């Protein structure tokens, strides 16, 4: 899982660049191979980058409130592109206004995202989750048991 490729970007017409630069730094620092598409990334751009680089996860940020409109259909487009099993993470200020996070999380999980992060979540949490999720997938392949899961 170290050296796994991640595709990173800010979706839609969103130009929030700061967190994107910090995430790139943090994921690189944690040993991942980061393909950072920057701001204003379309669903198609995420997917073609993931296909080209055989990425194991797509990490979507949305800070401007249009997340729900912009993210809809991403999972089904992944399936169409033959990468239906790719990990999809999303985080930021995903909807317009202060909303209860469990509700937001439910909405985005129903849209096919594996993990959903609230405003202000630290990159460290996503790194821990990525290591776990990617490890679990390796385990599926190699038939290891869950008890061997590493502590972080």
């Amino acid at each position, binding site marked *: 899982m170290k050296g796994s490729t991640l595709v990173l970007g800010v979706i839609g*017409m969103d*130009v*929030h660049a700061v967190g994107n630069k910090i995430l790139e*730094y943090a994921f690189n620092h944690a040993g991942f191979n980061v393909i950072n598409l920057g701001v204003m990334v379309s669903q198609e751009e995420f997917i073609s980058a993931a296909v080209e680089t055989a990425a194991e996860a797509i990490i979507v940020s949305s800070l401007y409130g249009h997340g729900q*409109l912009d993210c809809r259909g991403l999972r089904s487009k992944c399936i169409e592109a033959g990468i239906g099993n790719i990990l999809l993470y999303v985080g930021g200020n995903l909807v317009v206004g*202060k909303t209860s996070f469990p509700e937001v999380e439910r909405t985005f999980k129903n849209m096919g995202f594996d993990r959903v992060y609230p405003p202000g979540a630290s990159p460290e949490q996503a790194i821990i989750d990525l290591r776990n999720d990617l490890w679990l997938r390796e385990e599926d392949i190699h038939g290891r048991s869950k008890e061997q899961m590493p502590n972080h």
Partner: protein
Amino acid sequence: MAEVRNKCLTIKEFEAVRQGVLNQWPTGKGLALQEAFSYQKKIPKQKRFAERIEEAMVKGEVLTQPRAGVALIDQQILLLKHLEAEGGADLLSATIDSYTRQNRYHEAQKGIEESINAGRSMLNGLPVVNYGVASCRRLTEALNRPLQVRHGTPDARLLAEISLAAGFTAFEGGGISYNIPYAKNVPLEATIYYWQYVDRLAGLYEENGLSVNREPFGPLTGTLVPPCLSNAVAIIEALLAAEQGVKSITVGYGQGGNLIQDVAALRSLKQLVLEYMERYNYKVKITTVFHQWMGGFPPDEAKAFGVIAWGAVAAAFANATKVIVKTPHEAFGIPTKEANADGLKATRQVLNMLQGQRITELQALEEETTIITAETKSLLDGVERLGEGDWALGTVRAFAAGVLDLPFAPSKLNRGKVMPIRDQEGAVRFLKHGNLPFTQEIIDFHRTKVSERAKAEKRPVSLQMVIDDIYAIGKGMLVGKPS
């Protein structure tokens, strides 16, 4: 693309592209300027933005202004009426949604429809272009205070045409401040030209006796922007606007958090912009805006009010003509109308308590003002040199050369070699100054300030320190010190 020049567009040049601009979306078609002028002439004086803010400057008032935008126009009217009545806002805004900002009117239309279906706003602002002149007139007529368009649109020509015709009397933005922080890959030649069009349009209103206030967006990327950089951009945009016939300009600065630096930054900005206006003999009324903290906020609302109140203090001591107010919901995005009014009320309380109080003859303030002015002049001299005296051309070349370089900007045109950091007292300094044309004295000043902090924190200077600074206010501190 042809190179841009800082020269007032002729009416022929303006007319040559105008129909193309108006035809970008059906609501622009057939928009007649003469009809727009007659409509604007009926707007009462107390609702004209330029008149109100210039009156405030003379009287020494600090005006409050919220940001505010939702998808549906009737909801927008309710929102602004609430901010007027309950929040006591002196000036009002319609914040434009992010689809409109990128000229994606089809997506904005979908956002309106989805908002109607969902019973709540699915857009982060008001899609003014989609509504068109008649609907927006209903909005401007429903309110009693001056109304400004606030956005982040690289090509805002159609938005400007529609909103001014609809009775808005102020328009934010500029060819640099709405490009480098708001776009990924739009040439500066293009945005400077788009904004010459907007400024010329404002100039045409002026020539018909109708004031239009223009405001370069001061905070830029809103993240640890050293004052000299935002001040240099504001001064250039003021010069570009004045050349097109704009007569009312509000230059701005985003709060850094260190009081001395914030007060010094706005003082230096005002002095320098007046100096440059005089040099070119532009007859422009200059006012100032102070933006409360534009970076990450604490999610806790009581803590957020602390940040808001500190911004009000700095605005008062900086003697700003207006302050753009944040809300206790900032950490979560778009606020409710109640939270928005709360931010305005907290700010007004502090401004009133500080009325008449001044910081004068403070040595640290003098020193900080001197250094910001010296840095800003170095940058402006660099731009002027590269442009061979032309500010438009100089700006394009300066970004290419890294002589202007904004931290954390999304645009590919920006070199991205500059890295800011806070010093021991929280003032924003340069960790890396890239290709900014600074004297050795200025470079040494920043080096000393940064090493003082590293020594105090007993850790080497690193990117981690900068990241700690970016998150610090959200976590309850100004400087990102190790816990």
